[in-house]
């Protein structure tokens, strides 16, 4: 429910559990106590001064693949009268969501 902005950790103070995070050029201090495994170079979501999640480039790619599946013309999949039987291959995007 909340504004959390992604940024890159440019510096880390492990003892104080704080990081310097660069978000689109804005540099902020954020607590890392909720994401103790975060490293310099990681991209993180920052909310109310706390990092809450490490953001993964690979996972971003998963969503983009999902988007590609969703926008493929697959009219034969949908319950439409007069359509030909669906082909065997089915780009069902559900697999991407199961982890």
């Amino acid at each position: 429910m909340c504004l959390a902005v992604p940024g890159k950790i440019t510096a880390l103070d492990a003892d104080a559990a704080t990081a310097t995070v660069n978000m689109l050029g804005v540099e902020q201090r954020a607590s890392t106590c909720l994401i103790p495994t975060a490293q310099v170079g990681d991209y993180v979501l920052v909310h109310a001064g706390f990092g809450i999640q490490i953001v993964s480039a690979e996972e971003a790619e998963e969503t983009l693949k999902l988007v590609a599946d969703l926008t493929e013309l697959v009219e034969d999949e949908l319950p439409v009268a007069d359509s030909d039987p669906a082909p065997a291959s089915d780009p069902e995007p559900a697999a991407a969501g199961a982890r």
Partner: protein
Amino acid sequence: MTDTTVLLGHGSGGQMMKRLIDEMFLEAFGNPALNEGNDAGVAPLGAGADGEAGSAPVRIAMSTDSFVVTPQFFPGGNIGRLAVCGTVNDVATSGARVRYLSCGFILEEGYPMDKLRTICQSMADTAREAGVAIITGDTKVVERGGADGVYINTAGVGELPAGAELSGSNCRPGDKVLVSGTLGDHGIAIMSQREGLAFAAPIESDAAPLNHLIAAVMEAAPHVRCFRDPTRGGLASTLNEFAAASNVEIEISEEALPVRDAVRGACEMLGYDVLQVANEGKMVAVVPPEEADAALAAMRASRYGENAAVIGEILPLAEDASPRVRVRTPWGSARVLDMLVGEQLPRIC
């Protein structure tokens, strides 16, 4: 107006301030020049000013602005530079050649002299750049606790070339809307100082005198309809003012708006709409469509105009519709853009 006391929102450049102006000030001392609602008042002087036959009066444009910004020193400038730029720009939007400024100081007891010296030097440098002279002034000192350090008021006077009839009420369907550069820089520079946001490369206020840029655009696009600097309330206020004055609809394209990445990032973090953030060195111009390319080229060739862009156009109003401003998204939808209501608050959740 139902408010019984003055609230901070009355000064923010949005709807509350408009109501105060309409219902308090215009109600008390309105007159044709003031009621136009443009940034500078235009009125005749000299022979013929009272309507005597056989004389063509000189027309002057006059404007005043008070500067109460805190912090007084910020990346990219200080209250002094703002004080000169703000008034120079307001007068210049009328199409007048700005000549003279007055300057009144209200100083707080205890304010450091060397800060005042820096402010005055900035004013001198900026006035020199703009080609104006500060020819009169006033000084007051108030006890500790008043004036928050220093308040400055400047007023400016310029002469209008014959035939220049710029006004926010001139916009016609088909006209193009231009902005001279990136949006939101000044407001974010100030807010980030206040909120303690640090930037990898600091965002600087864009405060700048734009009278030379305006002159260049007027030469390249002689039928320019109007200029305005989108200060408090941002581009949203300026465009809504034009729409109301001209009784039109204005549509701008989100993709066309020039905004620095760091400003975009700060707006996201602070929860601001960049279209409602103040600018101090930018100019909006509305020009006939056949002069848009020339106007854009003139802006881009001017100091402070390198990121100028055409951002939208004037549309006719549908029957029974009210004047409004809309923003078109990259995927074809459009949403209404209102003036700011009161103060912007940073949101989190």
